[in-house]
């Protein structure tokens, strides 16, 4: 079979949880070419931040992602606190790390279920999502919400962890650890699971490094990078844990890394609970943040999250720029899919744990085949068009206004 056919995977497709589009050109069952299109879910959050006070931005940025909501809000707040030159109380940094780890647990369990579903292993999906309820209930208990916990405020956290809650956390962690050990067994012993995942979506250490893969995707190719170790934030400096890496370099490696990271998270939570200091929860931060620029890094469940904040001395940021981990990993996906099977496309895409809504920004029509058919205008043409339009429809003549060359 040499005839090529193009299969559209997306923007609406059962394999995708969010709108994104992969036009897969097939040669038989093999992938000959793949065209990735993102940008279906641009929500203008960065721009939205510019008109809002810093505290409102926290709530807005928490809604960048439904899964790593704490990651984005913490990452932003760290940048703001750096600008304001505040040091948060020790207890606040512990509680932030605690929520970060709980979030990692629920994100990784969610990923395990999604990945299992992509390879038609629905039993594992049902099991892992049932166990995910344990951590979701715990988050609801601690913060009042299953997602978007809103535990951060500028200068600290809003909520303490009581003695009773500590007990409940430890109890939940014990249950989860037992279940995770079962998943480790599934991942290392279940034949059809291993058969489907190994040697799929291979990306070598060099390629992963060159394409800038982050988080579990990079670590599964042997890149020993973790912001929690490399550039410790919150309370991670005082916590003992390992960076999990793997040398399989394929989807199987990514699954193993995530499952093992779960075990690390349980150990981190136990240490955090044990060492939780008795200090105030937050410090006061003035409403107006001094002018400056700051970049903050955070190890979200999916990889390194970067926020850039530029302040101008008022209570509203001048510019907020965020780079979600998916953007760093999406380049690697095209490489992983080279010469792959069509049946592996969903799982390879799912293996980076993509979050397209977090990644989507304004779409640029360059290189788009469709836009060539349309009438594309240069700056000069657009100006002429608008002058004529106003002359004709509104009776105003703008042609005498001096033309600025700045944008051409």
């Amino acid at each position, binding site marked *: 079979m040499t005839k090529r056919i193009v299969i559209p995977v997306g923007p609406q497709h059962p394999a995708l949880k969010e709108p994104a589009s992969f036009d897969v050109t097939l040669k038989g*069952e093999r992938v000959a070419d793949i065209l990735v299109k993102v940008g279906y879910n641009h929500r203008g959050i960065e721009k939205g931040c510019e008109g809002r006070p810093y505290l409102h931005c926290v709530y807005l940025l928490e809604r960048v992602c439904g899964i790593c909501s704490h990651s984005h809000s913490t990452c932003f707040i760290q940048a703001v606190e750096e600008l304001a030159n505040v040091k948060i109380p020790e207890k606040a940094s512990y509680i932030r790390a605690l929520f970060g780890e709980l979030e990692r647990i629920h994100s990784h369990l969610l990923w395990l279920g999604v990945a299992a579903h992509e390879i038609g292993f629905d039993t594992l999906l049902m099991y892992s999502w049932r166990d995910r309820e344990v951590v979701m209930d715990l988050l609801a208990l601690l913060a009042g919400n299953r997602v978007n916990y809103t535990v951060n405020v500028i200068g600290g956290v809003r909520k303490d962890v009581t003695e009773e809650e500590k007990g409940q956390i430890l109890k939940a962690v014990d249950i989860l650890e037992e279940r995770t050990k079962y998943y480790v067994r599934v991942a290392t012993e279940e034949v*059809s699971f291993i058969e*489907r995942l190994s040697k799929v979506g291979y990306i070598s250490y060099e390629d992963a490094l060159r394409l800038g893969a982050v988080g579990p995707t990079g670590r599964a190719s042997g890149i020993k990078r973790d912001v929690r170790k490399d550039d410790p934030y919150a309370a991670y400096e005082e916590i003992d844990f390992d960076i999990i890496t793997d040398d399989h370099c394929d989807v199987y490696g990514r699954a193993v890394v995530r499952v093992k990271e779960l075990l690390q998270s349980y150990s981190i939570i136990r240490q955090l609970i044990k060492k939780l200091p008795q200090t105030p929860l937050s410090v006061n931060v003035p409403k107006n943040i001094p002018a400056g620029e700051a970049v903050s890094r955070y190890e979200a469940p999916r990889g390194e999250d970067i926020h850039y904040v530029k302040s101008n001395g008022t209570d509203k940021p001048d510019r907020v720029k965020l780079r979600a981990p998916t953007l760093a990993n999406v380049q690697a996906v095209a490489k992983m899919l080279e010469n792959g099977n069509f049946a592996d496309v969903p799982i390879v895409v799912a293996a980076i744990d993509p979050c397209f809504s977090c990644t989507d920004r304004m779409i640029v029509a360059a290189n788009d085949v469709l836009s060539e058919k349309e009438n594309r205008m240069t700056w000069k043409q657009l100006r002429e068009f608008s002058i004529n339009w106003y002359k004709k429809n509104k009776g105003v003549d703008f042609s005498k206004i001096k033309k600025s060359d700045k944008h051409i």
Partner: protein
Amino acid sequence: MTLYLIKILIFPGLLFLFILSLIGEYYDRKLYARMQNRVGPPWFQPVADFIKLLGKELIIPLNADARIFKILPVFACVATIVAYLYIPLFSKTSLLPFNGDIIFVLYMLTLPTLSYALAGWYSRSPYALIGSTRVLTQLFAYEVPLFMAVLAPAILASSWSFSELITFYQTHNWLWLVNILGFIVAMITLQGKLEKVPFDIPEAETEIVAGVFTEYTGPLYAYFRLAMNMQTIAGASLVAAVFLPFGFGSCLIVNFVIYILKIAFILFLLALMRTLFARLRIDQMLVFCWKYLAPIALAQITLNIIIKAWL
């Protein structure tokens, strides 16, 4: 004549098969759900689904060949019903016995699969097209081991007819136990025939949406689902008749209960397989069928020839 018509149309023919297939679907879904720690559907869900689909709008794609597009679901149903009429269920003889009916049933059960492939082809949708090539590729993978596995017990009984096969195993008590390897192969290939996990490659929803059925809606899709459910029952009955040839001796009601128990056991094994495994890739499926299942089926045939010489 009237009795024949009643038998064909009502019991144990068309209507019985229709009801049994819906019960079978419920049983399968409930088991699957309970094994996955879910609640599962209520008992009337398959009937409700069927009625709902019958009432939905029928959309035929512009590019599709409308006549063939409409005929194929009915064709799949009819082929399965015909196959079912030739399988002995709870008496030694089927409704219409003749010498060679084992092979006839196997061929009749291949026809629904071919109609799925044609349905995908005539839908003119990329997903359905890929699904249809996968249906055919998969057919070539499981069909040979299935045929070999089913024919092994027949070789031992020196007959291609169901009634003679059952009579043979009734006179040789417990001899059907030697066919256990063939039974395993037949169960696995039956799963492939029914296109369920781990062999649901032709309708892998995360890759090709619903495979060959992507463009099918409303009543036509309802008939395809019905054909699939009836195929499950017919396939299970075939395996039961060939590999579990016991319990035909007593009165009709006891025989009937034994038949239902056999079907329940086989459906349980199919549901268990669905729960335990992840979906294979098409190349893995081919390798698995030809490298492992076909030699095992061949071993069964060799074993049966040796036993036959010894008897």
